[in-house]
């Protein structure tokens, strides 16, 4: 899966190790240590497919960042990570358009499955857009 992933979490140890493991499995990984950093990373890198984001972060928390992402990059899918105490926030996130949520600590294989689903969805959507555009161009040419 050639997916481009953004990892957002304030626990540096966690983010770094996770990045290494995902990298080992062939994904391209960018890291950010706060909600704001994550949004900035998205602005800088338009090829990010899936964002894996922790809910509880100081400063801009996960849900706020999610809303920004969904507002500005609606095709990017977001998977929320949450500790037990914040399941409600994750559900809030789902209502705001998150793709799914997972509890920390998470099983890597499960996470990879979800990332794949998200990636596939994004790809499918992008393909539909291309096709629609193509049809539009064809129609315009009047052939």
């Amino acid at each position, binding site marked *: 899966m050639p997916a481009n992933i953004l990892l957002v979490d304030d*626990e540096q*140890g*966690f983010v770094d*190790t*996770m990045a*290494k*493991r995902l990298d*080992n499995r062939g994904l391209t990984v960018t890291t950010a240590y706060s909600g704001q950093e994550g949004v900035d990373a998205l602005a800088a890198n338009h090829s990010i497919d899936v964002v894996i984001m922790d809910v*509880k*972060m*100081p*400063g801009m*928390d996960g849900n706020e960042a999610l809303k920004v992402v969904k507002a500005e990059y609606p095709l990017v899918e977001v998977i929320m990570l949450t*500790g*037990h*105490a*914040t399941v409600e926030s994750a559900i809030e996130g789902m209502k705001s358009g998150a793709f799914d949520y997972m509890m*920390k*600590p*998470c099983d*890597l294989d499960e996470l990879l499955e979800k990332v794949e689903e998200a990636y596939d969805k994004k790809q499918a959507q992008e393909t539909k857009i291309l096709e629609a555009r193509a049809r539009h161009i064809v129609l315009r040419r009047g052939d």
Partner: protein
Amino acid sequence: MSDTHYYHGLAKSMMFTIILVSFAPLLCIVLIAGYQYSVVYEEKVEAHLRELVLKHDQSVDSYLEEKVAEIQVLAEIIELGRLHDPASLQALHDALVRGHGSDFVDLGLVNSEGIQVAYAGPYKLQGVDYSEEEWFKAARERKVHVSDVGLGLRGVPHFTIALRLDENGQEWVLRTTLDFISFNKLVEDIRIGETGLAYIINRLAEFQTTPRRDMTAEVPFLRQMAASMTGRSDMVRGRAAIAVETNPATGRETLFVTSPIKNGDWIMVYQQDAADAFSDLNRSRNLALVVLLLGGISIAVMAYLMSKRMARKVARADAAKDIMNEQVIEAGKLASVGELAAGIAHEINNPVAIMVEEAGWIQDLLEEGLGEDDNEREVQRALNQIRTQGGRCKEITHKLLSFARKIDPTVKSVCLNELVLEIVLLSEQRAKYANVIIETSLGDSIPPVEASPSEMQQVFLNLVNNAIDAMDPGGGNLDIMTRVEDDTVVVSIADTGCGIPQANLSRIFDPFFTTKPVGKGTGLGLSIIYGIINKMDGTISVNSALDQGTKFTIRLPVAEGEDGGACDFRTNEHGAS
């Protein structure tokens, strides 16, 4: 705080209040009504007696008048010559007897020397010399005279009417004797009650009628009374005087009703023991007193029983309330522990997640093989990280354990600075996520206070949580300060949050008052804190301004008997977390 002394006092004051309130109107009514009633009753009795006496003396007077008138008519009609003649005198007497029964006992004509020259009657009194008799002497001066009652020559009580006749320059006296018995009867049958009796006396207190009982002992007294009646304005016919005096003969208080008759020569006296006359009144008075007494006793007994029962009920209610309070505090403690547990669990999750990731990474590397790349060094690094994170977990669980250990509510000497730092540590994570910066300024050598550590924990935790809630998620500053003022330790917790509106400031310590949405706050936190602080003889106050912040200040008395050094603590400046 059940204090038997307090409840005894309560019962006593209730009892006295009930008794006072019940007795006061009761006594008032009994006294006022009783007084009024007895005054009126006495008046009525006296008026009645007076009327009675008046009636009788009127009848006595009219009796006498009638007899006198009779004789006068006779004297005018019959010529003197006929009166000389015994036979015609006798005929006259017979006529009188026929007309008046035995009232006119006899009839006689007395010449100017006092010799009875003609007599008609049952006695042998012809020729008797009456010149020394009082009535004879009186008749010489007055035309008509009614004598006092006396035994006379016949040895039988009687009295005489003497009528002076003038004829041819000569004076004659026509006399007639009146029957004493029927006269006596007029007076004798005035009888009321047990001791009431009536009699007639003259000015010298000589009895004119026979009283029902022997009155010799009272004679001097009566003489005195008669004498004192001389010259009184009510010696006018038609007025009866009433007096209440102690009868020297009987020693009892006696009612005397006196009325002059026969133009003041005689006095009609009615006497009755006061106790007898007012017997009905006294009886009802005694009855009222008995009722009052019984009522009073039963009121007192009831009041005593009732107040004891009430005090017991109050004591029980207070005890139940105390238990309830304890339970509420327990519930509050559990609630804050629950909140804390959630926070701590989340905190632990992070290091655990890292440990899991690193372990997984090590597995990945082992699959590749340790010989490859930097893998061995990587594995070392990962293992170290695992150890570090494990250490973090240990710290967190220790934090929780030390909180949990203090569930025991017994009061000990507590060092507040220590407690504050503990709470700050516990709340670090939460503060971080809420963008709140906690700063502490803890005074040097704050002396310990007498408190239950678990309860003080609850107090500080609650206040810190409230402060963070007020600033979540915008963030702000949370400042905790401790200092000493004389015998008091002062702790203040100030935030820069949304503040408390003026209208709510007086209600924040009320139970179940909360401005948080349903399910988010029970409204019990501050009321529990209030109860805890009060129990320790401390005070808690609040200052707040909308959108600027809130500051809670707690004052606690220093523990006695401890030196100030027992809590010497390095004051750590806990900076931003």
